[in-house]
């Protein structure tokens, strides 16, 4: 046994490896991305970035049908994409262990919502394990494989940002080599025609009854003796906050929140006068406890919006507000597009074309922020194209030229295009939508830290593979007007975009250049501003590049050499030609 200092994500991978897992599939998404990145360090496990979460889930389910131990991982909203096969898989069950890791993001550090995926377990009738630190992330993942095979059901392991991205000491073991059982035809189980599904639903209800028994006896659900009349029921990282601020309370620590161990809840209730439920986001445990007829204090004290922390839990339990400190005005430091980002020139041009811009999920969503202000909508993966199409069809119904003649541009990243933009593009062509689709092709999944995708030419396991070009895909789908431009060539990009939006047919502009953080070989020496030529017009500042600033005293722009990547876009937009490349470059 050796000790490692692992993040929760890494610990899930370690647990899967120890459990003899054979296959893992995922699509990158914060805070779950590092699970597969860590799995990829174990050569015994076949792993892949699938094109999207639905694909990843089905890959894992197929492997389970063939008797392999399979792991699916995604961020919380990824499971929405995979919800269709996920629900079916509860009926089908698992031949090889099937573990579903969802990493939720309370506080939306890097997400569009803070949905509580424990509900998925309740809705689909699947057990839910909630680890509270990295050791439990590893142990619960291993346990989840055992539960999955023993009870013939997929098992959710639910992480949150503060378990995924928190490190703690983990005692590690060796891998158990478990052979893949192999495939046998079994249509009554694997083919969910209604005639089979009706029986499978009844069987699933029986499986849940057996799992309820398990939940009552497993030691991951345990009553911890306290010193006074207060009891706390808590799961996940919320348990650690409660333990920190109220160590003398009685606890029911829930490792498995569904099915709920009702006898253990009653045991706690018999020991204490008052029960608090400390859980993040929604009152999942609280509702179940209240449904048992047991009084408890939950969401009236414990906040439902944003993540918990020791201070918020202390306030909920003791009505103690954290001290307010007057720091004076501190300018915010929100995330911004990086210096040299290839998305910047595209947004700078689009914001001047005065079109409606429907956006998508990725780094480029930051194009919505000032000073670019170049995005109107962002919904979910792939929605840029489909929302643009819907807006177009609605405006066609209006006689007023101001509305009818609006140009609609959808902006989507390369990885997002392969994820779920392609079906929207087929729809736009099929249903004749004169919209422009800009594919921001930086050759990699940049937002989550540079993961490979079908356009990259490499797999997660490092193998060379077919590189699929977005422009060829668009042409094959019947788009007649396709441009491939270098976004750092401002003039070329502007001409293509201007012509594309003037057309009455679907048009695709692929703005193709590698993310400068991914491919640093393209970096050039820093540019510089000649103060004698600069007239202080601030057009370059309007690019929002962190490497350009404006000196309020001299009324001149300047380039900060430490940050500049030499992309040249500021020099191209400067009307005075005052920004120059370093001479020896």
């Amino acid at each position, binding site marked *: 046994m050796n000790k490692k200092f692992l993040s929760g994500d890494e610990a899930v991978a370690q647990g899967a490896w120890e459990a003899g897992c054979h296959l893992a599939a995922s699509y990158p998404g914060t805070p779950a991305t590092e699970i597969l990145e860590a799995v990829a360090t174990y050569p015994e496990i076949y792993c892949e970035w699938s094109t999207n979460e639905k694909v990843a889930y089905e890959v894992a389910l197929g492997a389970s049908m063939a008797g392999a131990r399979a792991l699916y991982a995604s961020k919380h909203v990824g499971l929405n994409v995979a919800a269709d096969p996920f629900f079916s898989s509860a009926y089908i069950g698992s031949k090889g262990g099937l573990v579903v890791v969802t990493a939720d993001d309370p506080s939306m550090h890097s997400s569009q919502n803070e949905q509580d995926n424990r509900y998925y377990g309740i809705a689909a009738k699947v057990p839910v394990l909630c680890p509270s630190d990295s050791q439990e992330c590893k142990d619960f993942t291993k346990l989840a494989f055992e539960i999955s095979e023993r009870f013939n059901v997929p098992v959710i392991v639910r992480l949150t940002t503060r378990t995924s991205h928190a490190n703690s000491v983990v005692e590690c073991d060796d891998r158990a080599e478990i052979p893949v059982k192999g495939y046998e035809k079994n249509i009554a189980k694997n083919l969910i025609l209604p005639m089979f599904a009706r029986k499978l639903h009844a069987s699933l209800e029986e499986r849940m009854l057996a799992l309820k028994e398990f939940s009552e006896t497993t030691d991951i659900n345990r009553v911890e003796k306290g010193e006074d009349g207060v009891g706390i029921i808590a799961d996940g990282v919320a348990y650690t906050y409660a333990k920190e601020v109220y160590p003398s309370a009685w606890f029911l620590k829930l490792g498995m929140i569904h099915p709920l161990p009702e006898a253990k809840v009653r045991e706690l209730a018999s020991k204490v006068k008052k029960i608090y439920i400390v859980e993040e986001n929604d009152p999942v445990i609280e509702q179940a406890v209240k449904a048992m007829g047991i009084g408890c204090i939950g969401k009236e004290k414990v906040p439902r919006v944003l993540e918990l922390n020791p201070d918020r839990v202390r306030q909920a339990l003791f009505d103690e507000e954290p001290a307010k400190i007057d720091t004076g005005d501190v300018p915010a430091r929100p995330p911004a597009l990086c210096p040299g980002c290839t998305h910047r020139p595209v947004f700078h041009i689009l914001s001047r074309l005065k079109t409606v811009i429907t956006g998508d999920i990725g780094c480029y969503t930051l194009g919505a922020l000032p000073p670019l202000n170049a995005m109107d909508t962002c919904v979910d993966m792939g929605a840029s194209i489909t929302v643009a199409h819907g807006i177009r069809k609605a405006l066609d119904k209006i006689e007023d030229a101001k509305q009818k003649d609006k140009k609609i541009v959808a902006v989507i990243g390369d990885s997002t295009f392969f994820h779920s933009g392609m079906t929207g593009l087929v729809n736009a062509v099929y249903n004749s939508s004169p919209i422009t689709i800009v594919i921001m092709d930086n050759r990699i999944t940049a937002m989550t830290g540079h993961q490979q995708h079908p356009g990259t030419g490499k797999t997660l396991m490092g193998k060379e593979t077919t590189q699929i070009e977005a422009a060829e895909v668009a042409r094959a789908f019947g788009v007649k007007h396709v441009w491939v431009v270098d976004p750092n060539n401002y003039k070329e990009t502007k001409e293509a975009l201007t012509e594309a939006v003037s057309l009455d047919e679907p048009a695709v502009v692929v703005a193709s250049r590698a993310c400068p953080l991914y491919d640093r070989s393209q970096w050039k020496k820093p540019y510089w501003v000649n103060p004698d030529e600069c007239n202080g017009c601030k057009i370059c500042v309007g690019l929002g590049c*962190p490497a350009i600033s404006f000196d*309020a005293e001299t009324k001149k722009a300047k380039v900060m050499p430490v940050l500049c990547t030499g992309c040249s876009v500021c020099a191209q937009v400067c009307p005075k030609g005052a920004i120059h490349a370093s001479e020896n470059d």
Partner: protein
Amino acid sequence: MPQKTTNIFVAGVGGQGILKFSNLLCEVAMRAGLDVKKSEIHGMAQRGGSVTTHVRFGKKVYSPLIPQGSADFLVSMEHLEAVRHIAFLDREKGRLIYDTCEIDPPEVYTAQRTYPKDIEERLARLAPNRISVPAFENALKIKNPRAQNVIMLGALSTYLSFDDSLYEEAIKRGFKEKYVDSNLKAFLLGKELAKG
């Protein structure tokens, strides 16, 4: 080490090596036989934005997050970030260790406002126990701007009771071989700077 949990809040701007700093520190504490927890944020929040990590070590650590007002050390690699996160510092017993280097936030580099000029006055009020370490300035002097974080680690080490050999081991394991010597030097430089 004392039985009480030691809390170290680390702040700065994306790109300053805050995560590396925290990883090295955690490795030292773990090798010293302590329970250690660290929490950080990745993803969208990291793109040039404020970056923070919570590092906690002791006999048994529960929460991965530091409660407000209980950081024994607030280490900030940037001037303004020290003010932003000051609520985590234990004002009575804790110590602020900070670099006065200034990185413009977006509102400043897009010419909407200027960088605050009164940070030192605010810190004098908010953090009576503090030491400023010109780590970035010295990193430039030794022609290794990326070593700012390791210089700050050297400065912090003078207030902790871990043996220097643990830091040296962590640096040797944490960097590619060709960067080890320069970072060991940066660590020693940080110790000197902390002594003033």
